[in-house]
């Protein structure tokens, strides 16, 4: 077919597969950090995001996010049910792969974003309310925000905001949504961290690191130099985030931990997501170091101080490092790295930074308000939160009639 490049097709299929694999990874990452009586509940949050948003996306999500623009705010429903979306290229989005492959690739972003939020309200959200939240949030928050930043005609795209692989769309939006949801749903009865299986969480973190190559390198949408650059900046920021987080632990608590190392890596990955294809490897080192540091401070200082119960640190990790990454992109971006990008503050361009501030503000406010409204709306229909006895007994048995491990082996 015209304009198609087999190498790019294969590469984006590879990338989309890797992102899908982040769902089992996230399920392990979150599942290992909760109590053993809630591991299946947390796991199900991720897998349900995969199942439900995979369908929502082809029914309406893709069209809302990437369909024909309506005032820069949202896509029209013209492409709902994938009408008119086929094997030919859509040059607005990717010049060398079938339009349908772009749909698939972007689908995985919608999936993982919704799943990330669930860490914030782990161990206490009712399942029907969760499912409603999943669909509504993805439809009314993710889809419009994705349109603003990535949709042809989206207002933030027009403004010149750079978001290579979802620093705004994925990370900031999920982090802020997590914070709001954690507050609205309220604290768990016992908030003391009680991770039941750290090797499970670490495996999950390792899979996320692996999958992030699909996320970030894949966002080049072509097997080219930009993808290579994104690969290296991604890996570098992850390494740097791990090192700064564990170093902080070591200095302050005298104990460098395994979970801390992996958490720092995730923070590094989050912080490079927006800029992976726009900044140099050297810049990514700094971005990752600061990302790990800020996430450490958010999790171990900010959270206890303000007392919100962001159970698995969706905000502390994705929100905080995501905002940092958005700012850092505006500082370190260079058109030498990517001619389709822009120069950042460091290269004398103030405008990008201003635009990123606007984008952060808009997305934080919109996400926070909408997440609040959605949760309140759901609470009119069904209770958000598990009963005290359900929470005490554990969500696995009380909500799902299932226990993860067989007590007598």
């Amino acid at each position, binding site marked *: 077919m015209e304009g198609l490049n087999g190498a790019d097709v294969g590469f984006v299929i590879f990338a989309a597969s890797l992102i899908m694999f982040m769902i089992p990874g996230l399920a392990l990452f979150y599942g290992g950090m909760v109590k053993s*009586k809630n591991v299946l509940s947390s796991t199900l949050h991720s897998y349900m995001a995969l199942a439900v948003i995979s369908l929502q996306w082809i029914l309406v999500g893709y069209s809302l996010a990437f369909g024909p623009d309506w005032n820069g705010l949202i896509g029209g429903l013209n492409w709902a049910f994938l009408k008119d979306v086929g094997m030919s290229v859509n040059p607005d989005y990717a010049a060398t792969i079938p339009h349908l492959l772009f749909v698939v690739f972007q689908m995985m972003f919608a999936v993982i974003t919704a799943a990330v939020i669930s860490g914030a309200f782990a161990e206490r959200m009712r399942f029907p309310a969760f499912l409603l939240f999943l669909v509504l949030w993805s439809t009314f928050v993710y889809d419009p925000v994705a349109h603003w930043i990535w949709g042809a005609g989206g207002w933030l795209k027009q403004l010149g905001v750079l978001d290579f692989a979802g620093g705004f769309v994925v990370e900031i939006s999920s982090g802020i949504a997590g914070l709001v949801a954690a507050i609205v749903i309220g604290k768990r009865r016992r908030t003391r961290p009680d991770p039941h299986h750290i090797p499970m969480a670490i495996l999950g973190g390792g899979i996320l690191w692996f999958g992030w190559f699909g996320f970030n390198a894949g966002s080049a949408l072509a097997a080219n130099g930009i993808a290579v650059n994104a690969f290296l900046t991604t890996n570098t920021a992850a390494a740097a985030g791990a090192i700064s987080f564990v170093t902080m632990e070591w200095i302050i608590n005298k104990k460098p931990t395994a979970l801390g190392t992996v958490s720092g890596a995730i923070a590094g990955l989050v912080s490079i997501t927006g800029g992976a294809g726009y900044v140099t490897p050297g810049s990514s080192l700094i971005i990752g170091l600061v990302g790990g540091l800020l996430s450490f401070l958010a999790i171990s200082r900010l959270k206890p101080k303000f007392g919100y119960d962001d159970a698995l640190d969706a905000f502390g990790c994705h929100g905080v490092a995501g905002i940092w990454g958005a700012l850092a992109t505006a500082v370190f971006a260079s058109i030498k790295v990517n001619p389709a990008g822009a120069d950042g503050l460091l290269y004398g361009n103030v405008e990008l930074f201003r635009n990123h501030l606007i984008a952060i503000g808009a997305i934080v406010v919109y996400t926070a308000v909408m997440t609040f409204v959605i949760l309140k709306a759901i609470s009119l229909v069904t209770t958000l939160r598990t009963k005290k006895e359900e929470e*005490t*007994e554990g969500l696995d*048995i009380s909500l799902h*009639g299932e226990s993860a491990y067989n*007590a*007598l082996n």
Partner: protein
Amino acid sequence: MTEKITKVDIITSPNRLEDLMDELDKIGVTGMTVSNVSGCGLQRGHKEYYRGTPVEIKLLAKVKVEIVICEIPVDKLVETVKKVLYTGNIGDGKIFVYDVVNVIRISDGTEGIDALR
């Protein structure tokens, strides 16, 4: 070593452990041993589901808390436990009381009541 030493075993739901420990702390219980057990009593299990099929689970996850006391009166301990764990539903748990012949603390060799101080 003339004092009577008693062991009190409390078997209850794992979810009540933290509450129980908080209260025991208050009445001066200084040591305890906790283990995961499975049990059934009046509460005869529940249903779980495996690929659509209901499965009867006869043994429920419980926690056993063993406390050996000497100075603290058994009654006081039992009352405290009852107060914390009581909801009036089966599954609240059970308390078993046993005699102990002797206790020895290894780190300083003390025996009996001294070993429990």
